[in-house]
């Protein structure tokens, strides 16, 4: 396994406001693959970013109440966001942009004030419940005319789907350009494409994607598809004296109050995995049953640190054990 993994080539850099990881099975193809990934991410950032004034999404949000022409990339991203909303009964909803702004998430989160040493939000009723959440069904997509219309006052945010979708597209582009197996991780959301290494892509599942690979968690390998992790333990900031996190419960319009700290899911692609992790965080106690019903292997870590696995997610091996 070690020899296999060390034969891989890889590089890391920053994009979309987070870290990007690229791994290839053919070291010689690194340069061309990275170029493909960078091009893909730049295009998606220009189409889907809520924080760029020149993005198409910002134009749609600024034009709320009227029909706005959009390009193919944003149209596809919006269709995907609506699919996520439909499949999760609205638990993953792109119309929570205004709620995020009201919670203080109005710029790149790295620029937000950090939480004041509070490790976890205290259990109890949501601190803020007066929020605007129009509901995903209010978005009107007109594919024939490449136009979208959102109601006045509604702000779209594609953070719950666009990053994982970008990883899927970038991995596919990298594999196609390089002719070898590729893995792309964007902020901890991991997509693979092409032929995997013989022993699979080795992934450390933990709370924070910025952690070292020795951080507390579990190491697994995947042969294809994607693996995503959502956590309330990261991307937190202080607003109005309270600690906020970036996952909004569309039902309350406030940062989610959930028993789970971190949820990881493996699926056929990173997008589906990320839809499942985000919805599972919102679904709180119902998450394990919901994930099991979908047949998605998952690992859930409670606020207290207890690990629960669902479906075919592997049990953790004792230190030094060799998998069968």
């Amino acid at each position: 396994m070690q020899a296999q993994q060390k034969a891989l080539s890889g590089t890391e850099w920053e994009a979309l406001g987070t870290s990007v990881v690229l791994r290839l099975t053919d070291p010689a193809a690194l340069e061309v693959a990275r170029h493909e990934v960078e091009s893909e991410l730049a295009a998606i950032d220009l189409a889907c970013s809520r924080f760029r004034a020149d993005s198409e999404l910002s134009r749609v949000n600024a034009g709320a109440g009227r029909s706005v022409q959009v390009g193919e990339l944003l149209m596809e991203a919006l269709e995907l966001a609506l699919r996520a909303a439909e499949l999760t009964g609205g638990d993953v909803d792109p119309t929570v942009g205004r709620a995020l702004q009201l919670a203080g998430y109005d710029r790149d989160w790295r620029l937000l004030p950090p939480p004041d040493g509070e490790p976890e939000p205290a259990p109890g009723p949501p601190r803020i419940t007066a929020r605007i959440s129009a509901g995903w069904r209010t978005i009107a997509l007109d594919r024939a005319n490449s136009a979208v219309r959102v109601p006045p006052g509604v702000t779209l945010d594609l953070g719950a789907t666009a990053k994982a979708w970008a990883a899927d597209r970038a991995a596919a582009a990298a594999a196609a350009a390089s002719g070898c197996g590729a893995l792309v991780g964007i902020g901890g959301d991991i997509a693979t494409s092409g032929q995997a290494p013989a022993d699979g892509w080795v992934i450390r599942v933990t709370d924070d994607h910025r952690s070292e690979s020795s951080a507390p968690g579990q190491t697994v390998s995947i042969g294809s598809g994607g693996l995503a992790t959502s956590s309330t333990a990261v991307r937190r900031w202080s607003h109005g004296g309270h600690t906020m996190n970036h996952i909004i419960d569309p039902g309350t319009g406030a940062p989610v109050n959930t028993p789970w700290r971190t949820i990881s899911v493996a699926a056929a692609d990173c997008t589906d995995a990320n839809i499942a992790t985000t919805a599972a965080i919102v679904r709180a106690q119902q998450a394990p049953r919901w994930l099991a019903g979908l047949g998605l292997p998952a690992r859930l870590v409670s606020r207290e640190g207890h690990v629960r696995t669902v479906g075919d997610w592997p049990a953790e091996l004792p230190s030094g054990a060799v998998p069968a």
Partner: protein
Amino acid sequence: MKFHSTHTRDAGLRKLALMNRWLIGASVILTGLFTEAAAHAFPGRSKTSTTSSAQAKAKASSKSSQGQSSDSSVSSSPPLKAAAQAPAATAEATSESKAAPEATKEASKESATTSESAPAQEATSESSSAVVSGGS
């Protein structure tokens, strides 16, 4: 003459009563139709009051069951798909990990408090080239 005018008046009153019934019936039907059309056209939600913990839990439970039913019966999108193969367990202890005292010292809350997994493994494991999947 008097009989004729009384008869005419009664007939007019009957016509008015009949018209009233029709108007009431039509207004009930139109109200229903309009409500249905409005419900489909403007399905958004708004929240203006503070939700108690118990209400929130009940709502979450209710919402989840609604979501499940919609997932299976109403959704027209292709469902979330599982990977061809589930993740596999991977041995984590490596020669590098034994030379990593910082990781051992900084065993996090997860490894310290997880009762259903092996805490020792969390603290000492390392895969030198593993890609990290975590929250962002």
